[in-house]
C-alpha cells in the first residue's frame, strides 16, 4: 500500500466529482430547510426530497466514480500509471464513501439541529433520524457491494429498487410503533428499544458491507 499514491487518486476523484458533490450538498440542505417549514405539505415534500437526494446521490456517485471508469475506459489510463490494484481499490472505496457521506452528514446534522432548535419542532422527533439516515447509508453500502462485485449498472439499480421498497417497509414499521410515535411528539428525547434494535442491525449491515467491499475489491486479480 502506497499512501501518497492513494491520496493523489483520492483527490483526483474528489476533484472529478466536485460538481455533483456540490449539487447534492446544496440540494440536501435545501431539502432539510423545506422539511423544517411548519406547513405539513411543504415539510412532507422536504422529507421526501431528503430521502430522494440521499438515494440519488448514492446511485449517481457509484455510477460516475466506480462503474463508469470501466465503461468509459479511463480505468485503463489510471492503471497504466504506477498504481497497484490495492492502491486503486482503496482510493476508490474511500472517495465513493467520502462523497456520499458529505451530503449525507450535512442532511443528518441539519435535520437533527432543526429538531432541537426550531420552536415548532419536537426534540423527541429526532429519535427517528439516526434510524432513517443509517438505513439510507446501509442501503448505499449494499448497493456499493453489488457494484463492486458485479460491476453492473443493471444489478446496482436493481439493488437500489430493492432498497427503496424496504425503505417504505421501514418507515411503516417505525411510524406505526406506538412507543416511537409517542416519543416523536414529546419534548424529551428518549430511545425506544425498537429504534436501538434497528440501529444495531443497520450498523451491522454497514460494517459487513464495508468489509465485503474491501475484501472483494482488494482481491480482484484483474481490473481491466
Amino acid at each position, binding site marked *: 500500500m502506497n499512501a501518497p499514491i492513494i491520496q*493523489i487518486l483520492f483527490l483526483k476523484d474528489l476533484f*472529478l466529482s466536485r460538481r455533483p458533490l456540490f449539487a447534492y450538498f446544496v440540494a440536501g440542505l435545501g431539502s432539510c430547510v423545506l422539511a423544517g417549514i411548519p406547513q405539513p405539505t411543504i415539510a412532507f415534500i422536504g422529507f421526501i426530497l431528503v430521502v430522494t437526494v440521499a438515494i440519488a446521490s448514492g446511485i449517481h456517485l457509484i455510477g460516475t466514480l466506480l462503474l463508469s471508469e470501466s465503461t468509459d475506459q*479511463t480505468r*485503463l*489510463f489510471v492503471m*497504466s500509471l504506477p*498504481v*497497484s490494484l490495492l492502491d486503486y481499490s482503496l482510493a476508490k472505496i474511500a472517495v465513493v464513501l467520502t462523497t456520499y457521506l458529505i451530503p449525507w452528514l450535512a442532511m443528518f446534522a441539519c435535520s437533527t439541529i432543526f429538531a432541537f432548535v426550531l420552536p415548532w419542532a419536537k426534540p423527541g422527533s429526532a429519535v427517528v433520524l439516526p434510524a432513517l439516515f443509517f438505513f439510507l447509508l446501509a442501503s448505499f453500502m449494499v448497493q456499493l457491494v453489488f457494484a463492486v462485485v458485479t460491476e453492473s449498472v443493471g444489478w446496482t439499480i436493481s439493488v437500489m429498487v430493492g432498497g427503496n421498497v424496504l425503505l417504505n417497509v421501514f418507515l411503516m414499521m417505525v411510524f406505526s410503533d406506538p412507543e416511537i410515535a409517542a416519543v416523536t411528539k414529546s419534548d424529551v428525547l428518549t430511545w425506544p428499544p425498537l429504534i436501538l434494535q434497528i440501529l444495531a442491525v443497520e450498523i451491522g449491515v454497514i460494517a459487513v458491507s464495508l468489509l465485503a467491499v474491501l475484501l472483494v475489491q482488494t482481491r480482484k486479480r484483474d481490473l*481491466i
Partner: protein
Amino acid sequence: MTATLELPTATKLAATLRGVSKSYRHFDLENIDIDLPCGTVTGLIGPNGAGKSTTMRILMGLVRPDSGTVSAFGQPVSSNQANAKSQIGYFCDDMRLYKSESIAWHMQFVRSLFPSWDDDYAAQLLDRFGLVAEQAVKGLSHGQRVKAMLLLVLARHPKLLILDEPTNGLDPVAKHEILIELMKVVEDENRTILYSSHNTQDVEQICDSIIFIDRGRVIAAQNKDDYLEEWRRIKLHVPEAWQPPAIPGLNLESSFRNLRVVSLNRFQEDIPAHLRSSGASIESVERMTLEEIFVSSVMRGREEAKETNE
C-alpha cells in the same frame, strides 16, 4: 511454437515473459516466451484478435496470467506492480482520458505521479503535435486524443515503452507526426520499445526486431533484417506429378496448371539449383516484403497447428 529473439551474451533485459498463458472463454494465450533486450525496438505483429493486446496487458501487469512469469527490469511484475509501472509507459488504443478535463489537467495529474516528468519536453510535444493544453478532452479529435495520450506517456521518459496500436485509425498526417516522434524516441539507445500493430509498414519503419503472433501463439521472432534476408518467393514451372523436394522451410503457396509458387524461410544460394535438380525450371526468385512474410508465417503456423490437431 514459442520463440525468443536471439540475444548477444550479457545483454540486459528490459522485460521478459516466460511460459505465459492466459485462458478466456473463446481465446487462449499459449506459453508465450518473449525477451525484450534493453535498447531494442521490437514490433509485435499479428492479425486482429491474435493476442497482442493481451500480451501487452500481461507485461504491463494489468492482466494477471494463469501461468508463467513476467518481469520488468529484473523485478517480477505481479508482486511489484506499481514499481514496475513507474518505468513503463503504456499506450493502448482502448485507453481514454477524462472527457470533462483538459490536457493540462491530465499533464498535472500524471506529473504528480512521476518525478521524472519533463515540463520542457511536454511543452515541446504540445507544440509539435499542435495541441492546446487548455482544451478539454471531449473536444479532441481521435488523432488529437492519441497525441495527447502519447504526450502523457513520453514526457515522463519511461525506460520501456509499450505501444499497443498507436497509429490505429489515424489519418496519414497524424500517423506521420506520431511515427516521426517515435523515431526520435528510438534514437535514445537506452529506451526499449514494444510496438504492436497489424500494419507491417509502420512496424518496418521503426522496429529492429519483430515477433509474429497468431491465435495466441508466437509463431516467429527474429531481427527484421534477418526476415527480409532469409525469406524468398520462388515461381517454378514444373513437370506433371512433380513433388516438392525436401528443403527445410519450403512451403507450397499456390499452384496453377504447371506453375507453382513456393516460399522459403531459410533461403540459401544453393536452393535454386536444388529445385532445378528436382525437374523444375525457375521463373523468378523474389525477396518478400514484411507483410508478405507475415501473411506467409501466419498461414504456415495455422497449417502446422491444424496438422498437429489432426
